[in-house]
Protein backbone atom coordinates (compact mmCIF):
# COMPACT_ATOMS: atom_id res chain seq x y z
CA UNK A 1 0.00 0.00 0.00
CA UNK A 2 1.70 3.23 -1.05
CA UNK A 3 2.17 5.78 1.65
CA UNK A 4 0.72 9.18 1.06
CA UNK A 5 0.64 12.44 2.91
CA UNK A 6 -2.03 12.56 5.64
CA UNK A 7 -3.08 16.04 6.76
CA UNK A 8 -4.06 16.01 10.43
CA UNK A 9 -7.69 17.08 9.93
CA UNK A 10 -8.71 14.84 7.01
CA UNK A 11 -12.12 13.31 7.87
CA UNK A 12 -12.43 9.55 7.98
CA UNK A 13 -15.19 9.82 5.37
CA UNK A 14 -15.71 13.00 3.34
CA UNK A 15 -19.18 14.54 3.59
CA UNK A 16 -19.92 13.49 0.00
CA UNK A 17 -19.24 9.84 0.80
CA UNK A 18 -21.28 10.00 3.98
CA UNK A 19 -24.24 11.51 2.12
CA UNK A 20 -24.03 9.04 -0.77
CA UNK A 21 -23.71 6.19 1.72
CA UNK A 22 -27.03 6.95 3.41
CA UNK A 23 -28.72 7.38 0.05
CA UNK A 24 -27.41 3.89 -0.74
CA UNK A 25 -28.93 2.55 2.44
CA UNK A 26 -32.31 3.94 1.52
CA UNK A 27 -32.21 3.08 -2.20
CA UNK A 28 -30.90 -0.46 -1.68
CA UNK A 29 -33.46 -0.98 1.08
CA UNK A 30 -36.28 0.03 -1.26
CA UNK A 31 -34.94 -2.11 -4.11
CA UNK A 32 -34.37 -5.21 -1.98
CA UNK A 33 -37.66 -5.20 -0.08
CA UNK A 34 -39.77 -4.32 -3.12
CA UNK A 35 -37.76 -6.89 -5.09
CA UNK A 36 -38.70 -9.59 -2.59
CA UNK A 37 -42.36 -8.71 -3.00
CA UNK A 38 -42.00 -8.90 -6.80
CA UNK A 39 -40.21 -12.26 -6.52
CA UNK A 40 -42.99 -13.59 -4.30
CA UNK A 41 -45.55 -12.97 -7.07
CA UNK A 42 -44.06 -15.92 -8.95
CA UNK A 43 -41.11 -17.56 -7.19
CA UNK A 44 -38.65 -19.10 -9.65
CA UNK A 45 -37.09 -21.18 -6.86
CA UNK A 46 -38.83 -23.26 -4.18
CA UNK A 47 -38.94 -20.55 -1.54
CA UNK A 48 -40.63 -17.21 -0.87
CA UNK A 49 -39.58 -14.26 1.22
CA UNK A 50 -41.61 -13.64 4.38
CA UNK A 51 -44.62 -11.58 3.41
CA UNK A 52 -44.03 -8.94 6.05
CA UNK A 53 -40.67 -8.04 4.50
CA UNK A 54 -42.22 -6.92 1.22
CA UNK A 55 -42.44 -3.27 0.28
CA UNK A 56 -45.44 -2.07 -1.70
CA UNK A 57 -48.23 -4.26 -0.30
CA UNK A 58 -48.90 -6.10 -3.57
CA UNK A 59 -47.16 -6.74 -6.89
CA UNK A 60 -48.28 -3.45 -8.46
CA UNK A 61 -47.16 -1.44 -5.43
CA UNK A 62 -43.86 -3.29 -5.24
CA UNK A 63 -43.16 -2.66 -8.93
CA UNK A 64 -43.98 1.02 -8.44
CA UNK A 65 -41.43 1.17 -5.62
CA UNK A 66 -38.87 -0.82 -7.61
CA UNK A 67 -39.25 1.33 -10.74
CA UNK A 68 -39.10 4.51 -8.65
CA UNK A 69 -36.19 3.68 -6.36
CA UNK A 70 -34.17 2.45 -9.35
CA UNK A 71 -33.63 6.07 -10.39
CA UNK A 72 -32.34 6.93 -6.94
CA UNK A 73 -30.05 3.89 -6.98
CA UNK A 74 -28.75 4.73 -10.45
CA UNK A 75 -28.24 8.43 -9.62
CA UNK A 76 -26.42 7.53 -6.40
CA UNK A 77 -24.29 5.01 -8.27
CA UNK A 78 -23.32 7.45 -11.01
CA UNK A 79 -22.53 10.15 -8.45
CA UNK A 80 -20.46 7.69 -6.40
CA UNK A 81 -18.49 6.40 -9.38
CA UNK A 82 -17.83 9.97 -10.60
CA UNK A 83 -16.74 11.06 -7.13
CA UNK A 84 -14.66 7.94 -6.59
CA UNK A 85 -12.66 8.41 -9.77
CA UNK A 86 -12.30 12.20 -9.61
CA UNK A 87 -11.44 12.47 -5.91
CA UNK A 88 -8.99 9.61 -5.88
CA UNK A 89 -11.15 7.67 -3.38
CA UNK A 90 -11.02 4.54 -5.52
CA UNK A 91 -7.27 4.81 -6.09
CA UNK A 92 -6.61 5.22 -2.38
CA UNK A 93 -9.25 3.14 -0.67
CA UNK A 94 -10.84 0.63 -3.01
CA UNK A 95 -9.43 -1.72 -5.62
CA UNK A 96 -7.91 -5.13 -5.97
CA UNK A 97 -5.59 -5.68 -3.00
CA UNK A 98 -2.59 -7.97 -3.15
CA UNK A 99 -3.68 -11.56 -2.52
CA UNK A 100 -1.10 -11.90 0.22
CA UNK A 101 -2.52 -8.87 2.03
CA UNK A 102 -6.03 -10.34 1.78
CA UNK A 103 -4.87 -13.63 3.28
CA UNK A 104 -2.96 -11.80 6.02
CA UNK A 105 -5.86 -9.51 6.97
CA UNK A 106 -8.45 -12.25 6.62
CA UNK A 107 -6.45 -14.49 8.96
CA UNK A 108 -5.99 -11.60 11.37
CA UNK A 109 -9.74 -10.97 11.30
CA UNK A 110 -10.54 -14.62 11.96
CA UNK A 111 -8.19 -14.66 14.92
CA UNK A 112 -9.53 -11.31 16.19
CA UNK A 113 -6.20 -9.61 15.72
CA UNK A 114 -7.22 -7.28 12.89
CA UNK A 115 -7.36 -3.76 14.22
CA UNK A 116 -9.72 -1.25 12.66
CA UNK A 117 -8.36 2.20 11.99
CA UNK A 118 -11.15 4.55 11.02
CA UNK A 119 -10.48 6.15 7.68
CA UNK A 120 -8.29 3.31 6.39
CA UNK A 121 -9.45 0.16 4.66
CA UNK A 122 -7.66 -3.12 5.24
CA UNK A 123 -7.25 -5.62 2.42
CA UNK A 124 -10.42 -7.56 3.28
CA UNK A 125 -12.45 -4.36 3.32
CA UNK A 126 -10.96 -3.28 0.00
CA UNK A 127 -11.96 -6.59 -1.53
CA UNK A 128 -15.48 -6.45 -0.02
CA UNK A 129 -16.11 -2.88 -1.16
CA UNK A 130 -14.82 -3.63 -4.64
CA UNK A 131 -17.03 -6.72 -4.66
CA UNK A 132 -20.19 -4.88 -3.70
CA UNK A 133 -19.51 -2.16 -6.29
CA UNK A 134 -19.18 -4.86 -8.95
CA UNK A 135 -22.31 -6.63 -7.64
CA UNK A 136 -24.36 -3.43 -7.67
CA UNK A 137 -23.19 -2.68 -11.20
CA UNK A 138 -24.12 -6.20 -12.30
CA UNK A 139 -27.48 -5.77 -10.56
CA UNK A 140 -28.21 -2.60 -12.52
CA UNK A 141 -27.22 -4.29 -15.79
CA UNK A 142 -29.28 -7.46 -15.17
CA UNK A 143 -32.12 -5.25 -13.98
CA UNK A 144 -32.03 -3.32 -17.26
CA UNK A 145 -31.93 -6.62 -19.15
CA UNK A 146 -35.09 -8.01 -17.53
CA UNK A 147 -36.84 -4.62 -17.58
CA UNK A 148 -36.35 -4.32 -21.38
CA UNK A 149 -35.66 -7.82 -22.75
CA UNK A 150 -36.83 -6.78 -26.23
CA UNK A 151 -35.55 -3.22 -26.54
CA UNK A 152 -32.25 -4.28 -24.91
CA UNK A 153 -32.34 -7.75 -26.47
CA UNK A 154 -28.56 -7.91 -26.92
CA UNK A 155 -28.11 -7.33 -23.20
CA UNK A 156 -30.49 -10.11 -22.16
CA UNK A 157 -28.80 -12.41 -24.69
CA UNK A 158 -25.45 -11.88 -22.92
CA UNK A 159 -27.01 -13.34 -19.79
CA UNK A 160 -28.46 -16.34 -21.63
CA UNK A 161 -32.03 -15.12 -22.09
CA UNK A 162 -34.74 -13.72 -19.88
CA UNK A 163 -35.28 -16.55 -17.35
CA UNK A 164 -31.56 -16.92 -16.64
CA UNK A 165 -31.04 -13.15 -16.44
CA UNK A 166 -33.88 -13.02 -13.89
CA UNK A 167 -32.18 -15.64 -11.75
CA UNK A 168 -28.82 -13.84 -12.02
CA UNK A 169 -30.63 -10.71 -10.82
CA UNK A 170 -31.93 -12.76 -7.87
CA UNK A 171 -28.52 -14.31 -7.12
CA UNK A 172 -26.78 -10.93 -7.25
CA UNK A 173 -29.36 -9.61 -4.78
CA UNK A 174 -28.26 -12.35 -2.38
CA UNK A 175 -24.61 -11.29 -2.82
CA UNK A 176 -25.53 -7.69 -2.02
CA UNK A 177 -27.63 -8.70 0.98
CA UNK A 178 -24.79 -10.92 2.23
CA UNK A 179 -22.45 -7.95 1.97
CA UNK A 180 -24.92 -5.80 3.89
CA UNK A 181 -25.20 -8.39 6.67
CA UNK A 182 -21.41 -8.75 7.00
CA UNK A 183 -21.04 -4.98 6.83
CA UNK A 184 -23.64 -4.35 9.55
CA UNK A 185 -22.18 -7.07 11.80
CA UNK A 186 -18.74 -5.47 11.50
CA UNK A 187 -20.22 -2.07 12.29
CA UNK A 188 -21.87 -3.59 15.35
CA UNK A 189 -18.47 -4.91 16.47
CA UNK A 190 -16.83 -1.50 15.86
CA UNK A 191 -19.66 0.98 16.66
CA UNK A 192 -17.43 4.02 16.29
CA UNK A 193 -17.36 3.32 12.54
CA UNK A 194 -21.07 4.14 12.53
CA UNK A 195 -20.35 7.52 14.08
CA UNK A 196 -17.68 8.19 11.47
CA UNK A 197 -20.21 7.58 8.69
CA UNK A 198 -22.61 10.14 10.21
CA UNK A 199 -20.38 13.00 11.34
CA UNK A 200 -16.97 14.14 10.22
CA UNK A 201 -14.64 12.18 12.51
CA UNK A 202 -10.91 12.68 11.87
CA UNK A 203 -9.17 9.74 10.29
CA UNK A 204 -7.04 7.77 12.71
CA UNK A 205 -3.34 7.72 12.07
CA UNK A 206 -1.94 4.78 10.20
CA UNK A 207 -0.08 2.67 12.68
CA UNK A 208 1.24 0.17 10.15
CA UNK A 209 1.56 0.01 6.43
Amino acid at each position, binding site marked *: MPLHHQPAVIPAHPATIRFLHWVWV*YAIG*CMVFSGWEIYNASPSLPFSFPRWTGLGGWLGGALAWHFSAMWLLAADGVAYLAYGFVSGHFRRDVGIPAPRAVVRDFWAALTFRLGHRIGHYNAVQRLLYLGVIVALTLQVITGLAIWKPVQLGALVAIFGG*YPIARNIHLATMFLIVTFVIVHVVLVAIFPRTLVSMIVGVPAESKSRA
Partner: protein
Amino acid sequence: MTKKPGMTGPRRLPVVKIRDIQPELRRLDRRGFLRSSLSLGGLALLTGCDLSTNSGVDAALRSILRFDDKIQAALFSGRRLAQTYPPSAVTRPFRFNAYYAEWQVRGIPDGWRLEVAGSVSDKRPWTIPALRTLPQAEQITRHICIEGWTQIGRWSGVPLRAFLERIGADLRAPFVSFKCFDGYSTGIDMASALHPQTILAIDFDGQPLAPEWGAPVRLRIPTKLGFKSAKNLQAIEVTHIFPGGFWEDQGYDWFSGV
Protein backbone atom coordinates in the same frame (compact mmCIF):
# COMPACT_ATOMS: atom_id res chain seq x y z
CA MET B 1 -66.26 -24.63 -21.61
CA THR B 2 -64.33 -27.87 -21.71
CA LYS B 3 -61.11 -28.14 -19.83
CA LYS B 4 -58.27 -29.62 -21.79
CA PRO B 5 -56.39 -32.35 -20.00
CA GLY B 6 -52.94 -31.40 -18.90
CA MET B 7 -53.69 -27.71 -18.72
CA THR B 8 -52.54 -25.83 -15.70
CA GLY B 9 -54.67 -25.93 -12.60
CA PRO B 10 -56.18 -22.97 -10.84
CA ARG B 11 -54.10 -19.83 -10.92
CA ARG B 12 -51.41 -20.12 -8.31
CA LEU B 13 -52.00 -16.71 -6.84
CA PRO B 14 -55.39 -15.25 -5.97
CA VAL B 15 -56.39 -12.16 -7.85
CA VAL B 16 -56.06 -9.28 -5.46
CA LYS B 17 -57.53 -5.85 -5.87
CA ILE B 18 -56.37 -2.92 -3.83
CA ARG B 19 -59.70 -2.57 -2.09
CA ASP B 20 -59.59 -6.23 -1.03
CA ILE B 21 -56.34 -5.76 0.82
CA GLN B 22 -56.88 -2.21 2.06
CA PRO B 23 -57.23 -3.23 5.75
CA GLU B 24 -54.10 -5.31 5.48
CA LEU B 25 -52.22 -2.49 3.80
CA ARG B 26 -53.18 -0.25 6.69
CA ARG B 27 -52.00 -2.87 9.15
CA LEU B 28 -48.72 -3.19 7.26
CA ASP B 29 -48.35 0.55 7.25
CA ARG B 30 -48.52 0.55 11.03
CA ARG B 31 -45.94 -2.17 11.15
CA GLY B 32 -43.23 -0.02 12.48
CA PHE B 33 -40.28 2.17 12.15
CA LEU B 34 -38.63 0.54 9.16
CA ARG B 35 -41.62 0.85 6.93
CA SER B 36 -42.50 4.41 7.90
CA SER B 37 -38.91 5.49 7.49
CA LEU B 38 -38.83 3.87 4.07
CA SER B 39 -42.01 5.60 2.99
CA LEU B 40 -41.45 9.03 4.45
CA GLY B 41 -37.69 9.25 4.13
CA GLY B 42 -37.70 8.01 0.60
CA LEU B 43 -40.29 10.21 -0.88
CA ALA B 44 -38.72 13.24 0.72
CA LEU B 45 -35.53 12.34 -1.11
CA LEU B 46 -37.29 11.53 -4.35
CA THR B 47 -39.78 14.30 -4.74
CA GLY B 48 -39.76 16.72 -1.85
CA CYS B 49 -43.53 16.33 -1.58
CA ASP B 50 -45.55 16.65 1.58
CA LEU B 51 -45.73 13.03 2.59
CA SER B 52 -47.83 13.00 5.67
CA THR B 53 -50.37 10.58 4.19
CA ASN B 54 -50.32 7.35 2.32
CA SER B 55 -52.13 8.92 -0.60
CA GLY B 56 -49.24 11.33 -0.99
CA VAL B 57 -46.85 8.38 -1.26
CA ASP B 58 -49.11 6.75 -3.81
CA ALA B 59 -49.40 9.94 -5.83
CA ALA B 60 -45.62 10.30 -5.88
CA LEU B 61 -45.14 6.69 -7.01
CA ARG B 62 -47.75 7.11 -9.72
CA SER B 63 -46.10 10.27 -11.00
CA ILE B 64 -42.77 8.44 -11.20
CA LEU B 65 -44.50 5.62 -13.11
CA ARG B 66 -45.77 8.20 -15.61
CA PHE B 67 -42.21 9.45 -15.97
CA ASP B 68 -41.09 5.83 -16.49
CA ASP B 69 -43.72 5.51 -19.24
CA LYS B 70 -42.12 8.41 -21.12
CA ILE B 71 -38.70 6.77 -20.81
CA GLN B 72 -40.15 3.48 -22.02
CA ALA B 73 -41.82 5.13 -25.01
CA ALA B 74 -38.49 6.75 -25.89
CA LEU B 75 -36.68 3.39 -25.63
CA PHE B 76 -39.26 1.70 -27.86
CA SER B 77 -38.33 1.13 -31.48
CA GLY B 78 -40.97 0.26 -34.08
CA ARG B 79 -38.35 -1.74 -35.98
CA ARG B 80 -36.77 -3.72 -33.17
CA LEU B 81 -38.28 -7.20 -33.10
CA ALA B 82 -38.90 -9.49 -30.18
CA GLN B 83 -36.85 -12.68 -30.42
CA THR B 84 -38.62 -15.51 -32.23
CA TYR B 85 -38.17 -19.20 -31.46
CA PRO B 86 -38.39 -22.54 -33.29
CA PRO B 87 -41.61 -24.59 -32.91
CA SER B 88 -39.74 -26.98 -30.60
CA ALA B 89 -39.37 -24.17 -28.05
CA VAL B 90 -43.13 -23.75 -27.54
CA THR B 91 -44.11 -24.21 -23.89
CA ARG B 92 -46.45 -27.15 -23.30
CA PRO B 93 -48.66 -27.21 -21.40
CA PHE B 94 -49.29 -23.51 -21.73
CA ARG B 95 -50.13 -21.74 -18.50
CA PHE B 96 -53.56 -20.19 -18.16
CA ASN B 97 -53.65 -16.68 -16.79
CA ALA B 98 -56.40 -14.12 -16.31
CA TYR B 99 -57.79 -11.95 -13.55
CA TYR B 100 -60.09 -14.85 -12.68
CA ALA B 101 -59.75 -18.60 -12.30
CA GLU B 102 -59.81 -20.90 -15.29
CA TRP B 103 -63.27 -22.30 -14.49
CA GLN B 104 -64.66 -18.78 -14.88
CA VAL B 105 -63.60 -18.46 -18.52
CA ARG B 106 -66.42 -17.08 -20.70
CA GLY B 107 -67.53 -18.72 -23.90
CA ILE B 108 -68.00 -16.66 -27.02
CA PRO B 109 -71.29 -14.66 -26.76
CA ASP B 110 -74.00 -15.47 -29.31
CA GLY B 111 -73.84 -13.24 -32.35
CA TRP B 112 -70.36 -12.02 -31.42
CA ARG B 113 -68.79 -9.44 -33.73
CA LEU B 114 -65.55 -7.51 -33.23
CA GLU B 115 -66.68 -3.91 -32.85
CA VAL B 116 -64.63 -0.99 -34.10
CA ALA B 117 -64.96 2.52 -32.71
CA GLY B 118 -63.30 5.90 -32.39
CA SER B 119 -61.20 7.64 -35.03
CA VAL B 120 -61.82 5.17 -37.86
CA SER B 121 -63.61 5.66 -41.17
CA ASP B 122 -65.16 2.17 -41.42
CA LYS B 123 -66.97 1.13 -38.25
CA ARG B 124 -68.56 -2.06 -39.56
CA PRO B 125 -68.08 -4.93 -37.11
CA TRP B 126 -65.98 -7.95 -38.04
CA THR B 127 -66.52 -11.69 -38.00
CA ILE B 128 -63.72 -14.24 -37.72
CA PRO B 129 -64.09 -15.38 -41.39
CA ALA B 130 -63.81 -11.72 -42.43
CA LEU B 131 -60.66 -11.31 -40.35
CA ARG B 132 -59.21 -14.39 -42.06
CA THR B 133 -59.48 -12.63 -45.43
CA LEU B 134 -56.92 -10.03 -44.26
CA PRO B 135 -53.14 -10.62 -44.39
CA GLN B 136 -52.00 -13.18 -41.80
CA ALA B 137 -48.80 -13.44 -39.80
CA GLU B 138 -47.47 -16.08 -37.44
CA GLN B 139 -45.07 -15.68 -34.54
CA ILE B 140 -43.44 -17.87 -31.92
CA THR B 141 -42.52 -15.43 -29.19
CA ARG B 142 -41.99 -15.24 -25.46
CA HIS B 143 -44.89 -14.14 -23.30
CA ILE B 144 -43.41 -12.33 -20.29
CA CYS B 145 -45.74 -11.97 -17.35
CA ILE B 146 -45.47 -8.99 -15.01
CA GLU B 147 -45.15 -11.59 -12.23
CA GLY B 148 -41.83 -12.70 -13.72
CA TRP B 149 -42.69 -16.08 -15.27
CA THR B 150 -42.51 -16.55 -19.02
CA GLN B 151 -43.63 -19.03 -21.64
CA ILE B 152 -43.21 -19.35 -25.38
CA GLY B 153 -46.29 -19.63 -27.57
CA ARG B 154 -47.26 -19.74 -31.21
CA TRP B 155 -49.91 -17.31 -32.39
CA SER B 156 -51.13 -16.26 -35.80
CA GLY B 157 -53.60 -13.72 -37.06
CA VAL B 158 -53.93 -10.27 -38.58
CA PRO B 159 -51.15 -7.73 -38.01
CA LEU B 160 -52.84 -4.91 -36.11
CA ARG B 161 -51.28 -2.39 -38.49
CA ALA B 162 -52.96 -4.07 -41.47
CA PHE B 163 -56.27 -4.11 -39.59
CA LEU B 164 -56.01 -0.45 -38.57
CA GLU B 165 -55.15 0.55 -42.14
CA ARG B 166 -58.06 -1.55 -43.47
CA ILE B 167 -60.60 0.19 -41.20
CA GLY B 168 -59.21 3.62 -42.05
CA ALA B 169 -57.92 4.37 -38.56
CA ASP B 170 -56.36 7.73 -37.80
CA LEU B 171 -52.81 6.48 -37.23
CA ARG B 172 -51.89 9.78 -35.62
CA ALA B 173 -54.26 9.08 -32.74
CA PRO B 174 -52.12 8.31 -29.69
CA PHE B 175 -53.97 5.28 -28.29
CA VAL B 176 -55.66 2.04 -29.25
CA SER B 177 -58.04 0.75 -26.58
CA PHE B 178 -59.29 -2.83 -26.20
CA LYS B 179 -62.50 -3.92 -24.48
CA CYS B 180 -63.13 -7.59 -23.75
CA PHE B 181 -66.37 -9.47 -23.10
CA ASP B 182 -64.92 -10.94 -19.90
CA GLY B 183 -64.81 -7.49 -18.29
CA TYR B 184 -61.13 -6.96 -19.03
CA SER B 185 -59.73 -3.92 -20.80
CA THR B 186 -56.39 -2.44 -21.71
CA GLY B 187 -54.84 0.06 -24.06
CA ILE B 188 -51.60 0.58 -25.95
CA ASP B 189 -49.79 3.46 -27.61
CA MET B 190 -50.10 3.83 -31.39
CA ALA B 191 -46.36 3.25 -32.00
CA SER B 192 -46.61 -0.16 -30.32
CA ALA B 193 -49.90 -0.88 -32.12
CA LEU B 194 -48.14 -0.42 -35.48
CA HIS B 195 -45.20 -2.67 -34.54
CA PRO B 196 -44.92 -5.55 -37.06
CA GLN B 197 -45.26 -8.21 -34.33
CA THR B 198 -48.44 -6.75 -32.85
CA ILE B 199 -51.22 -8.99 -34.13
CA LEU B 200 -54.89 -9.75 -33.64
CA ALA B 201 -54.39 -13.45 -32.99
CA ILE B 202 -57.06 -15.87 -34.21
CA ASP B 203 -55.08 -19.11 -33.93
CA PHE B 204 -53.01 -20.44 -31.06
CA ASP B 205 -50.58 -23.29 -31.66
CA GLY B 206 -52.11 -24.03 -35.05
CA GLN B 207 -55.72 -24.22 -33.80
CA PRO B 208 -58.45 -21.60 -33.59
CA LEU B 209 -58.20 -19.95 -30.18
CA ALA B 210 -59.95 -21.86 -27.40
CA PRO B 211 -61.90 -19.71 -24.91
CA GLU B 212 -59.17 -19.94 -22.25
CA TRP B 213 -56.62 -18.63 -24.73
CA GLY B 214 -58.80 -15.70 -25.74
CA ALA B 215 -61.36 -16.90 -28.30
CA PRO B 216 -62.40 -15.78 -30.76
CA VAL B 217 -59.69 -13.11 -31.20
CA ARG B 218 -57.10 -11.65 -28.88
CA LEU B 219 -54.32 -9.11 -28.99
CA ARG B 220 -50.82 -10.56 -29.08
CA ILE B 221 -48.10 -7.98 -28.49
CA PRO B 222 -44.68 -9.43 -27.64
CA THR B 223 -43.14 -6.00 -27.07
CA LYS B 224 -45.21 -5.54 -23.91
CA LEU B 225 -45.80 -7.50 -20.71
CA GLY B 226 -48.32 -10.32 -20.94
CA PHE B 227 -51.25 -8.52 -19.34
CA LYS B 228 -51.31 -6.14 -22.33
CA SER B 229 -52.17 -9.02 -24.69
CA ALA B 230 -55.90 -8.79 -24.02
CA LYS B 231 -57.98 -11.92 -24.64
CA ASN B 232 -61.62 -12.38 -25.67
CA LEU B 233 -61.83 -9.08 -27.56
CA GLN B 234 -65.17 -7.34 -27.97
CA ALA B 235 -64.23 -3.88 -29.25
CA ILE B 236 -61.24 -1.93 -30.53
CA GLU B 237 -61.23 1.84 -30.29
CA VAL B 238 -58.75 4.26 -31.83
CA THR B 239 -58.78 7.19 -29.45
CA HIS B 240 -57.24 10.43 -28.30
CA ILE B 241 -58.39 9.76 -24.73
CA PHE B 242 -55.99 7.95 -22.42
CA PRO B 243 -57.61 4.52 -22.10
CA GLY B 244 -56.17 3.18 -18.83
CA GLY B 245 -57.01 -0.48 -18.33
CA PHE B 246 -58.15 -3.14 -15.86
CA TRP B 247 -54.77 -3.58 -14.16
CA GLU B 248 -53.37 -0.20 -15.11
CA ASP B 249 -56.14 1.56 -13.18
CA GLN B 250 -55.07 -0.40 -10.09
CA GLY B 251 -51.41 0.54 -10.36
CA TYR B 252 -49.63 -1.55 -12.99
CA ASP B 253 -47.58 0.82 -15.07
CA TRP B 254 -49.43 1.74 -18.23
CA PHE B 255 -46.78 1.44 -20.94
CA SER B 256 -45.38 -1.88 -19.65
CA GLY B 257 -43.01 -2.31 -22.57
CA VAL B 258 -40.36 -5.00 -22.55
